[in-house]
């Protein structure tokens, strides 16, 4: 099977990969540039990294965003697992269409609409219910949980659909309660998907600037908001250094977890085959 078309699609593939990676590689190289100018190579230097770590404002935004992403992705995965069980196992209930629609819509809905609508909700809630009194980390957490939950549900749903249900049915036949069967049989089987859903949610929360800008409040400047406001003014070497650190951290975690879940998957299927 070696025709002209195969080499064409292969060619486009590597072209696309080059297109995807080249800008990031350039960014990483220039973060080590001594000169402030992007085009002039002034020699290798790590001084922008030193400056970055001395920037208290950015460093506290990093910590704030990491904390936020942790709580948002944890809540998103819990709700997402429940939603996936509903979508896969509860095939018939009234307003199922509404439910599955509310899972799909956040995946594609433009951020400005989600951000605006969330903010209007919070404003109305504080008007009528007196809560939340101020906007800040709490409101961003709610908004991010809602957004990430949709992604988590899709990831977990695909795994749950593929899963062999006979194991769970056997456990139920042997007298296990629904909850026990789920916790001891189903959850370990879908665990790799739950882990990837958590990581995906984490990166989405860590990345969001538009929704957070709408629902944020005093003292809750997340890292993307901080980066966006300085990037709007132009390219700065300090942001290059920060970008490099983010790219390297996210890719190493992503590649690492990808290998891990893959190994987990093969081991799991081997174990199941032996049983």
């Amino acid at each position, binding site marked *: 099977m070696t025709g002209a078309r195969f080499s064409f699609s*292969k060619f486009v593939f590597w072209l696309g990969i080059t297109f995807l990676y080249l800008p990031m590689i350039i960014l990483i190289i220039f973060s080590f540039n001594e000169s402030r100018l992007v085009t002039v190579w002034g020699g290798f230097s790590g001084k922008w990294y030193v400056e970055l770590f001395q920037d208290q404002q950015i460093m506290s935004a990093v910590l704030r965003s990491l904390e936020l992403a942790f709580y948002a992705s944890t809540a998103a995965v819990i709700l997402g697992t429940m939603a996936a069980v509903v979508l896969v196992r509860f095939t018939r209930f009234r307003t199922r269409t509404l439910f599955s629609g509310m899972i799909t819509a956040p995946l594609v809905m433009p951020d400005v609409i989600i951000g605006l609508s969330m903010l209007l909700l919070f404003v109305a809630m504080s008007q009528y219910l007196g809560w939340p009194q101020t906007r800040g980390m709490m409101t961003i957490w709610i908004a991010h949980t809602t957004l990430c939950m949709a992604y988590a549900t899709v990831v977990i749903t695909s795994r749950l659909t593929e899963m062999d249900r006979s194991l769970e049915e056997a456990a139920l036949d042997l007298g296990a309660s629904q909850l026990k069967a789920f916790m001891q049989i189903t959850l370990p089987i879908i665990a790799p998907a739950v882990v990837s859903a958590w990581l995906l949610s984490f990166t989405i929360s860590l990345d969001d600037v538009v929704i957070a800008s709408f629902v944020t409040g005093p003292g809750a400047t997340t890292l*993307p908001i901080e980066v966006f406001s300085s990037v709007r003014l132009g390219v700065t070497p300090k942001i290059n250094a920060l970008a490099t650190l983010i790219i390297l951290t996210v890719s190493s975690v992503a590649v690492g977890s990808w290998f891990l879940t893959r190994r987990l998957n093969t081991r799991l299927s081997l174990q199941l085959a032996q049983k």
Partner: protein
Amino acid sequence: MKLASIKKRLPSGRHWILSGPYLWLLVFFFLPFVFVAKISVAEAALAIPPYSDMFDWLDGVLNIRLSFANYQWVLDDPLYLYAYWNSIRMAFWSTLLCLMLGFPMAYAIAKAPKSIQPVLLLLVLLPSWTSFLIRVYAWMGILKNNGLINGVLMWLGVIDDPIQMINTNFAVYIGIVYAYLPFMVLPLYANLVKHDQSLLEAASDLGAGKLTQLLRITLPLSINGIVAGSMLVFIPVVGEYVIPELLGGTQTIMIGKVLWQEFFNNRDWPVASALAMIMVIILIVPITLFHRFQNKEIKP
């Protein structure tokens, strides 16, 4: 089915599982749109929050005030209409560009040996996990007037004056295709990898050329993936804010940017809500389409 009867005997657990995510989405995803609709028919006011109340209770009479002036204002102003039209047009062309680049890429992955397919897919998806903002930012350094491309071209002596690339629609297209390409490749690959190869072999045995196979078998079979991937790009791009803000110029008028300015710069919440409502109405057909095709993909 046995499981169904067991479930019926345990309604409490079932309802608990259902109501958690359901209530969350109703309150934090559905309800907000009710408020967007409500404030889109309010009047802007110098108050906190900056809009008039819909209900007011005066001398035992409940007055409900619905002002459609915001919609009239938006629909009468050619600038807003142009912003919608331009966003849809730019989203359309960038979706097409993503498809033209993404289809061969997905095809190449699906045709690769089974063992290396996951690695190739990871290679495509990895950039989409790193920060969106930073990937758009990377292009600023490359495209700006004293940026990398202009610097290299001037150093080589090809041009004397920098080419204006940043703050143009060209830069916005590059940014969109760059940021959204992985979202096109993923559903296409998921679809292409499931194709039955024996169909192609049969066609080949019957004398069909490669191009005929592609046009008559592969493309029609991958229609679900094409629609899902295209909608995954088209819908968010219509409301895109970050890319036109960072890479576009004053002539790049997109509705996401206009909405942002109405909200943050003019503090006109009712007009911003009306803009959002019209955007939702425009996008409801593509979103429904995406929903249907995505569900088809999930079901085996």
